[in-house]
């Protein structure tokens, strides 16, 4: 096992933890895909295979009390923000034990206690609330940061521009994490953006922007920590651009007719954040197998937990409409 140098800012041990978490997300997503195809999971599901390093890198840089808003591709963010796989899987099965108690589903994962203000199925829908949360932190002088995850597709919608403008105008402690996977569902970036470098959009509002290789969890973590410190120190919001790859379809079952198969194969071989990290860590097969078995057991257990969960009564639908 090769020694990893400390200059990176995190210890070997921490990096192994990151790997374990990313592997957990990967195995979880694979399991979700398997159970969905088996017909056990209702609804509309989007998995984040290929984008695990951003979820783990950013969330591991957060402090207690920081909050996030996620997207329709939310399983990774939710696990990384600390929700137990059991609660997440139970939600996907529509059980009361789920993190949204069966009211949300895959695209509406909440865990308020752990600072997850909700995944949003409307592209860009969660950004304004992150500005508001950050405004509340500023009002109260609390050293907390609000973080919005969103994709490159969301940078074309009005809420993105209104939110960045307002956040910068009011200098609120927010970080806007753009997961640039170059696809807005099936539409490639060249068809939905007239520019290549998305940091220019943030710069238009005078906002500090940072750019990082989103497949390198160590880098994501390092740069996210910088962004969070900037915001927390009252220096204003930050736009954090993470270049990444979606190594699967938009949704489970997406035949990806719009995508070049060879290019996808090439990316799966060269841009898999887990493979890159495994190599960097120089994990032995035995170590890898041991970790894999550990997370696989967690994932399997989550399915058992979810299936044994409590179905809501139909009339439970009438609860929680009003406070």
């Amino acid at each position, binding site marked *: 096992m090769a020694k990893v140098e400390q200059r990176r800012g995190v210890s070997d041990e921490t990096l192994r933890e990151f790997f374990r978490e990313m592997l957990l997300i990967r195995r979880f997503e694979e399991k979700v895909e398997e159970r969905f195809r088996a017909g056990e999971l209702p609804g509309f599901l989007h998995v984040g295979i290929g984008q695990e390093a951003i979820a783990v890198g950013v969330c591991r840089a957060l402090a207690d009390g920081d909050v996030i808003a996620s997207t329709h591709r939310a399983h990774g963010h939710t696990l990384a923000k600390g929700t137990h796989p059991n609660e997440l899987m139970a939600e996907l099965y529509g059980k009361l034990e789920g993190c949204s108690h069966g009211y949300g589903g895959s695209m509406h994962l909440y865990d308020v206690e752990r600072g997850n203000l909700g995944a949003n199925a409307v592209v860009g829908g969660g950004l304004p609330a992150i500005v508001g949360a950050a405004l*509340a932190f500023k*009002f109260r002088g609390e050293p907390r940061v609000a973080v919005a995850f969103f994709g490159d597709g969301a940078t074309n919608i009005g809420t993105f521009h209104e939110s960045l403008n307002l956040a910068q105008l009011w200098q609120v402690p927010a970080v806007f994490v753009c997961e640039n996977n170059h696809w807005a569902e099936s539409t490639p970036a060249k068809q939905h953006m007239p520019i290549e470098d998305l940091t220019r959009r943030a710069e238009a509002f005078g906002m500090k922007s940072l750019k990082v290789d989103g497949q390198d969890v160590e880098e994501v973590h390092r740069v996210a920590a910088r962004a969070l410190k900037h915001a927390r120190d009252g220096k204003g919001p930050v736009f954090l651009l993470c270049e990444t790859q979606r190594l699967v379809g938009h949704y489970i079952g997406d035949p990806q007719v719009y995508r070049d198969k060879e290019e996808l194969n090439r990316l799966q071989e060269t841009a898999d954040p887990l493979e890159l990290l495994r190599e960097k860590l120089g994990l032995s097969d035995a170590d890898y197998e041991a970790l894999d078995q550990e997370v696989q057991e967690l994932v399997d257990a989550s399915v058992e937990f979810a299936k044994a969960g409590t179905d809501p009564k139909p009339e439970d639908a009438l609860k929680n409409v009003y406070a």
Partner: protein
Amino acid sequence: MPELSYREAVRDALSRAMRADEDVFIMGEDIAEMGGSMGVTQGMLDEFGPERVRNTPISEMAIVGSGIGAAMQGMRPVVEVMYEDFLTISMEQIVNQAAKHRYMSGGQLKVPLTIRTQGGAGWSPGAQHAQQVEAWFVGVPGLKVVFASTPSDVRGLLWSAIYDDNPVVFFEHRTLYGLKEEVAEEIEPIPIGQARVHREGEDVTVVATGRLVHEALAAAEEAEQEGVSVEVVDPRTLQPLDEDAIVASVKKTNRCVVAHEAVTRMGFGAEVAAVVQQQAFDWLDAPVERVGAKFTPLPFAPVMEEYVVPHAKDVLEAIRKTVQRDGTS
């Protein structure tokens, strides 16, 4: 007892809440130095400063959306959307976000946000500054909808809206801002979901909202001259609706007219009529009559605007229809 205009009553409720509670703040377009496009927030910047009386860019999505975010963190923001017509821009945030966060989170979140807005015809702004859209929001589970028609009501209801743990869309009427009324020294909070009987009567119940409450009261005076005794009920809160008060009144009078400035088709009155027929069918002695705007966008030319929106004479005509005795129709 101080006399307050409707405008001052709104300001009074906002100011008292902000004095009492640091979690309350207001934001919106032109609300600071200018004091709001309707002058509602005049002087508040001086008292509370620019942090709590926040001028915003022209960004309805972000105004409402950041209000949602702050509310989810436990603050009680009151955001102002300058005209009801502009609610359309923030519709996604109101309908998909504010109304649903509590539900989608399985009860983990609360969104104590008040969205103040105003509209209404009578001053010829044309089609994009006067539409009445309150009914759109009544059909969205998770939202509460208030439409106050007098200074005392607007003050007491706004207070309750601010302290409600749900998002409240709070409608004010443009032409009522100058309306004056003696009000109590202290704010008397009015529970959300409680109707007000403005005038008791025996023969016909008019369920009216907003400006039409005053038109209905004028029509009731005229009807009185004709020997018809009219009861005027203002629901004040459209969601939740005080069905009991409306049904009780109709059971007494056996006739019902619904009246609002918004278009009749799919207007709030349609819901009231449905409630009445369902709960008071055997008490009805005439079909429920509806009074509302004609089905057009609001025209500019004053004569056309006057023609499109309903007035006291339209309410009176509807009242006469319900008590008609001459066999013609």
